[in-house]
């Protein structure tokens, strides 16, 4: 059997396997991000969040959407540590 014939036999199968693995990984990555967002939304104390000054409220809403403590802390104008305390007061879980 020539090398070319062997390649023709194996290449499509190899391609399908690689494609499936990458697809599953990406799918799982997207699912993880979506599930985390849902969990943050569901657990949050929305009446507490709505009672806060605009900057803190915006920061917590951003955190719920993105799960990004660093950017949320910059929006709120506080350190990450202080932002984490606010997250806990607002009953938003850190999901990861």
């Amino acid at each position, binding site marked *: 059997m020539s090398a070319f014939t062997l390649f023709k036999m194996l290449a499509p199968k190899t391609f399908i396997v690689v494609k499936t693995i990458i697809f599953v990984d990406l799918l799982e*990555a997207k699912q993880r*991000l979506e599930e985390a967002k849902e969990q943050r939304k569901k657990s949050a104390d929305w009446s507490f969040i709505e009672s806060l000054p605009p900057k803190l409220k915006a920061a917590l809403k951003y955190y719920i959407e993105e799960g990004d403590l660093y950017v949320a802390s910059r929006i709120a104008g506080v350190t990450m540590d*202080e932002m984490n305390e606010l997250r806990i007061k607002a009953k938003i879980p850190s*999901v990861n």
Partner: protein
Amino acid sequence: MSISIADSSFLIDWARFSKRGLLFDVFQAIFVPETVMAELKTELVLSWIIDALSLQKMMLFPDIPELRAAALNLVVESRRYSYLKSLDYPEAYCIVAARANGYTVLSENGGAYLAQFFTVKDVKVWRAFEVLVELLRLGKIVKDFLKYQEETNHKFPKRDLEKVLGGNKDYKRKHD
């Protein structure tokens, strides 16, 4: 035991865990970037880190201009992968420092965690979850996944918990 470099998101969560000292059973040393120190203000977190610094279990990692530039490049590069959460500067800095020195990154940032599977495959990124799994493997903890979640208001993805504790009936009963 290996060396790690931790970002703020990991340290502020882990510091609330009553068994936080166990972290040093997994890593012989933990670097804390200087920029991370500026993000820490609460007494609980600061006192834990200061104690660890004085015991030389933690060490400050300097702000190195070359790594700063590489971290910014990584932030820009991560924006190209729209299907993933992009990286922010603090965790990007930890990643490039880890890549240059063979450290493990400790981060609770979702973008950093997922990046190791796609964009920075040569760097290992651990969340508290992986540290707890390692502690479980070492026989240092038994059922502390729930305890960690309660004490830090942190939720581990169900799929990860089931992989590790799926067979544990007591865990399932409490978690359902």
